[in-house]
């Protein structure tokens, strides 16, 4: 469904990615793990067309999307839950969710989807007319996910969906990601720093370090690998 091939990315003279290769199969939850500044968010940005790689190719559903403008990539069915959530603070919860449907052309189904998305997030229903900026961190995360679902995506890219949340909310959010993947059949590619929890719900994972993919494997392999614990010790201190 998604494939990155030999991606090299630069910010000015600084190289961030060194030949990144990864793929995501339909229906999977795939986790990209790595410490701070290892190039995770940049990977997301490359997929979403926010940053253009200097070399390499990105394929989505077998067609190349490298270098396409972001709005065209979204229109092909890619939802995004950005790092730090980035909801629209001055728009109401309802407006935020409907903004998610911006790229769609099937306007008549939007109302129906709106109801369905809300069924995943009952808390949001109670706050539909509240401004997005007034929500708590966990609620904002839900809003960001609801917004991404309104794209009717085939793939959702999530950048650190559990960042800055309390342990209770972390569980809740991961649970929801699991549900969305299961019941809606939406493929999920997510970036995380807290490996152990994310790998509980993931099928496969990659570990990125200083712009190189250093480990890849199934979630259970990674969970049991001594190397990953080691990598994480190095990364989080």
């Amino acid at each position: 469904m998604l494939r990155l091939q030999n991606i090299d990315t630069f910010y000015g003279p600084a190289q961030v990615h060194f030949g990144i290769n990864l793929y995501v199969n339909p229906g999977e939850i795939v986790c990209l793990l790595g410490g701070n500044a290892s190039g995770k968010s940049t990977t997301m940005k490359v997929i979403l067309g926010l940053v253009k790689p200097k070399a390499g190719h990105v394929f989505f559903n077998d067609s190349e999307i490298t270098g396409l403008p972001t709005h065209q990539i979204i229109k092909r069915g890619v939802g995004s839950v950005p790092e730090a959530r980035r909801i629209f603070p001055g728009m109401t919860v309802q407006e935020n969710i409907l903004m998610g449907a911006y790229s769609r052309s099937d306007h008549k189904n939007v109302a129906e989807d709106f109801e369905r998305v809300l069924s995943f997030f009952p808390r949001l229903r109670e706050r539909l007319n509240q401004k997005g900026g007034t929500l708590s961190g966990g609620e904002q995360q839900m809003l960001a996910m609801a917004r991404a679902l309104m794209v009717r995506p085939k793939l959702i890219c999530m950048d650190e969906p559990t960042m800055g949340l309390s342990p209770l909310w972390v569980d809740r959010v991961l649970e929801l990601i699991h549900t969305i993947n299961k019941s809606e059949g939406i493929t999920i590619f997510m970036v995380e720093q807290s490996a152990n929890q994310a790998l509980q719900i993931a099928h496969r994972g990659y570990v990125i370090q200083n712009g190189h993919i250093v480990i890849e494997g199934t979630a259970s392999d990674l969970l049991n690998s001594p190397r990953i614990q080691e990598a994480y010790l190095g990364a989080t201190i």
Partner: protein
Amino acid sequence: MNIFFDQTINGLVIGNIYALMAVGLALIFGTANLINFAHGSVYMAGAYVGWTCVTYFGFPLFLTFLVVMLFCALLGMLIERVGLRPLQNSARIAPLLATIGISFILDQLAQIIFSPQPLALPPLISTKRFSLGATSIGVLDILIASVSLISGALLYVFLRYTRMGWAIRATAQDRDAAQQMGVDVNRVNQVTFAIASALGGLSGMLVAMYFNVLTPTMGFQAGLKGFAAGLIGGLGNVPGAIIGSLLLGLIESYGVALLGSSYRNLFAFVILLVVLVLKPNGIFSKGRQLPPEPMTGTFIASSKPVQIPRSVLIGVSVLAFLLPIISNNYWLSVFTTALLYGILALSLTLVAGTAGLMSIGHAGLLAIGGYTSALLSLRLGLPFALALLLAACVTAILGMLLVMPAFRLRGHYVSIATIGIGEIVSLTILNWESLTGGPVGLMNIPPPSLFGFEFYSNRSLYWLSLVLLLGLALLQWQLVRSHIGRTLRAIREDEVAAQAYGINLNRYKGIAFAASGFIAGIAGVILTHSYTYINNETFNNTISVLALTMVILGGRGNIIGSILGAGLLIVIPELLRDVLGESFIVYRMLLYGLLLVLFVRWRPQGLLGTV
């Protein structure tokens, strides 16, 4: 009491016009994070297009409004395409500089097409007035109020209920997130520029009708005023811009009634500065926290400055000394001008380049220096050398004190504040007639002299300028390679980090502006004494932009570059005039604007590279 009501009506009507302008600036600031300096020129263009429709084609008013809006919408889209879109990945100051260049180009085009002389509109609507108790209201007042109310309502509906309106609001709140919802932000910017410019053009046409006068330079101050109005209500905030505009209109009207119409613009610029310094988030906000900084980050494109061997520099200097032997008087005076502008560019490159504070009010410093020494010579009969020294010191001190309140500002806000300060200096000169002679100015200023020798001939003036330029350049060279220069560059690269190292930011910015003021003051003195005449228009904002162009052309912070920039921008137009004939001279300013835009786009590090 009647006067009070009359002025209230006037103030509200003018406020309505400003609102049309300020709302557009707010929209653009919201979606594109850009203070669009070309907005004032769009407003001017609106007025001239309207004038053309009415006088040439005899269009009825309604059709005229439509044509004005359509034309300006297209113009706005063009500005977005040229001044913003290609620069999205450049240094963040780049689009600001580009819009300054575009504004320059548009103003010059208007001068070329319509002549610099003011134009008037034929009577377009009835001058009937309706009595309203203690006051009365004219048909034009009602028209202006309804036009802005209708525009406001349409804009509200558009932003609230259309797909594009949603996209604009989302982009204004979080551009990246909007992109990830599938919003094409380039398209959003384009539409925003179109709407904003249509409103801006309409505003210009209404102003032209209200005051019944059009000038090609009417946009500069108007744009700054629209910005002031927006700032009062909080930048990027549409309702805030409307409230700010009405407040500004009222303050202006009451102020003009009290002090006279030549003070009109002074209120706006003083308010601009006060709000910028005390309440940069608008008067309704709490606290003094700066609004999200639109233009920090990599300020100067990193580049390797071109190294010029010392022998070449010495050789060129020697040749420059010998030049008067072969040059005729005409070219000698051209070269003298180039040298004096070189001093000005030197001064600007210190703050705009080395310190990274993009000052756009530098002509104000020339004026301070020029007036001070002219007054010292004329009124107190001081010898020139003493007047020069004192004037340079006064310029240093005043230049520093005036900008000091703005030291906590960064990026765009520095530029806005310095433009405001420049305008305040020029308006103070205009209004302080007992000292400055107001618009009449000062005459019979003695030529530069030293120990009884008068620098009257072109040759002597040339040599004097050359000596001063070389001396000041050497001094500045010492300064920028001392620890002061290093500290200034550190502040430019990362103000927060510099502060964390215990650097006193205000002290170093003060030093930069004082040194810059000293140097600019000298340029102002020599220019004034060689003209033997000065008034409030001698050093106007065109000169500020010209100086900025010189600095960009040479490479920001690059001492030799600034001198080269000045030399090229003064000499090339004269060469072209030789080749293309006298008529070329009207295109000179156009060339400057074009160069600014081209360099920002294609060679932001300038000819010799930034330092």
